[in-house]
């Protein structure tokens, strides 16, 4: 009798449990996703951006969320908000919140779509990475430069096509944190990425990784061309591009953390 009763009890508990105690999203159908996207745009996009990319709210197009990653955790966040922030809870029925979560997950899928390491030879790509001087600006694990994004887990965060575009056209879709700024002072040009700026001062990490602070009253110009500091690698042979992409797709480490992007 006991053997039969336990599964029955579990079933009964599952049926009786309120939906928010589900561990996993019960929805997955395209129609549910469309409804979730609609609700997301109505309720969330104003702060998080239409595609979860930015705004005054947290970026959602990421591999890992700051306040929790499981379905249950994200459900709780959407329902209750995040205390101490401007993120309010949504007073919605639970099914709607689960559907919104589908939309949120779709932004992550963009960020974490499988990066395929073929075609190409990853070890050849690794040599190319070194030969092209990529490490001058990018970090993998503990090694590398500070001007560009940390690539330690880039194979988890971007698709192969996204990486190809980033290599060939680095200025096409560039985060504000990596845009070039040029400060001209006394005939010199200081080039780097912007760290901070207000009405009276501007601060950058220059291309030699010096932290530089300027008073605007003492400079001739502050220019922001909106482009990336990274040169366009559009002259690589198709084979070399494949090698480099194959190598980048193998990068799935923990990285060094640090500033959010």
């Amino acid at each position, binding site marked *: 009798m006991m053997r039969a009763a336990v599964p029955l009890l579990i079933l009964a508990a599952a049926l009786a449990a309120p939906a928010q105690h589900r561990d996993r999203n019960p929805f997955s159908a395209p129609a549910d996703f469309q409804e979730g996207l609609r609700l997301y745009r109505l309720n969330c*996009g104003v702060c998080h951006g239409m595609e979860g990319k930015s705004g005054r709210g947290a970026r959602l197009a990421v591999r890992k969320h700051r306040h929790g990653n499981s379905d249950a955790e994200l459900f709780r966040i959407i329902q209750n908000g995040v205390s101490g922030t401007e993120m309010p809870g949504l007073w919605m029925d639970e099914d709607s919140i689960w559907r919104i979560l589908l939309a949120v997950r779709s932004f992550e899928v963009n960020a974490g779509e499988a990066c395929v390491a073929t075609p190409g030879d990853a070890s050849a790509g690794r040599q190319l990475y070194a030969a092209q001087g990529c490490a001058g600006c990018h970090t993998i694990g503990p090694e590398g430069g500070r001007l560009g994004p940390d690539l330690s887990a880039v194979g988890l965060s971007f698709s192969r096509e996204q990486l190809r575009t980033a290599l060939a056209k680095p200025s096409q879709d560039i985060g504000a944190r990596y845009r070039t700024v040029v400060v001209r002072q006394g005939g010199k040009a200081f080039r780097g990425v912007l760290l901070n700026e207000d009405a009276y001062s501007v601060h950058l990490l220059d291309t030699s990784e010096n932290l530089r602070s300027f008073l605007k009253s003492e400079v001739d110009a502050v220019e922001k061309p909106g482009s990336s500091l990274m040169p366009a690698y559009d002259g690589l042979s198709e084979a070399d591009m494949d090698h480099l992409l194959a190598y980048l797709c193998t990068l799935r480490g923990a990285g060094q953390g640090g500033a959010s992007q």
Partner: protein
Amino acid sequence: MRSSPMPFRLFAPFLALALVAWPIAAPAQVTNEDLARDLDNPADWLSYNGGYEGWRHSKLDEITPGNVADLRVKWVFQQPITQKHETTPLVHDGVMYLTVPPNEVFALDAETGRGLWHYKRQLPPKIIACCGEVNRGLAIHGDRLFLATLDSFIVALDRKTGRVRWQTEMVDYSEGYSGTHAPLVVGNKVIVGIAGAEYGIRGFVDAYDVADGRRLWRFHTVPGPGEPGHETWGGDSWKTGGGSIWVTPSYDPAANLLYVGVGNPGPDWNGDVRPGDNLYTDSVVALDADSGKLKWHFQFTPHDTHDWDAVQVMVLIDREFRGKPRKLLVTANRNGFYYVLDRLTGEYLQGRAFVKQTWAEGLDDSGRPMVLPNTDPSEEGAEVYPMVAGGTNWMSPSFSPVTGLFYVTCREGSSLYYKGPSEYRPGTRFWGSMFMNEQTESNWYGAVRALDPLTGRPVWEHRLFQPAWAGLLSTSGGLVFAGAQDGWFKALDAKSGKELWRIQLGGVVQASPMAYESRGRQHVAIAAGQSLFVFALP
């Protein structure tokens, strides 16, 4: 009672302070006469804008363009705040009364910043406030302070102890209502409005008896069936029409009229479900203070689809206009236009854009905007100036009787406005899609501008790095105090706009400054970041 007496261990230092006998004056009763002459008694600051006129001007003149370079921090009052600090403190008889978000009140010695008492409201866990759990300040009368709360109560506190004297529920907050602005006391009434148009509320302005909290009248900002203006709402859209009150009204004692700026219609960005002009959203309404009856109204943005609510402080001035002395109401509206109205009749006299705007060809002879095509939100997104937060917003402007100029914080830039579906469910967002600023922010900037109050023409401009959320204070010493998004607090020459002094406060300034006198010296106060900063000359 929802008040929570402060635990003794927190209160003990305050008590000790009281025992060592700092000679703070015993709180005298604040009378209606005191409130009416708030502007002429610059030692105190007795209402949100320092007087019924809405001028936010201090007649103190110790700090001048000649000595402001020596201005320094006198004291700072910090609290672990995670919300925006939008408050303006009151000062009476040497005591400062300060709200701290979400709904706390502190009484401080205005000379030293040391605490005298503390009130903390226990709020329900799910507050519904679209734009932060904020509070902008208090009203004072008799021996009481009045606080509008995020859970939609009006609360009277004892000025000596912070204990609750009475509290009245204005409306059920769970349907999306919240109280954020500093109330105003007129006669025996506390005047207070409600916000929540982002959640499909039906807004109102109320009057409560200062003695017992009894409601004396209510004016619905969205008229119901049978009321004038109801015909400007298609179908049942009036039921969720919005019309928030976000800032403190101004008041003309001679006319006994309250001037109340009314917020946006709901849903914000989709007007299809609410055909018509949607009165009295985006309007100023003149209400008889005794009865709450509407005397006149003027709508700045009929059938708004950009969230350009009339959340600005109405500034009341008496000036000669086209050869005739007139009682005027002037205001720089979120929609980008500056307006001059006759405040006894509501007649439109003059208007012009004070920031870049691309949605109207101009204003017609009645002051109605001549709306350009393709400026409504669309599914593809329509880029329109001003930005969604408007050419200005809730932060107070200032009028100086010394320079005769109107000062306003300006926000230059555009937004992409999208239209989408809207469905009403109580207590949830009722927006009709959204706006996007990502692609337009790089062109944004802010400014403090001085305008000729009769024409709206700019006289000078002080450029700000970003559009600011900080209001302005003018002083008879010849200065304008201004805050900025990048943490700077500044003193400008009121005549020229020249920057004369600045200090980096290390946090965003999103409040309006005020001034008071302590021990015969002028003090200037501003909330920024997690703190209230008070400045004086050495």
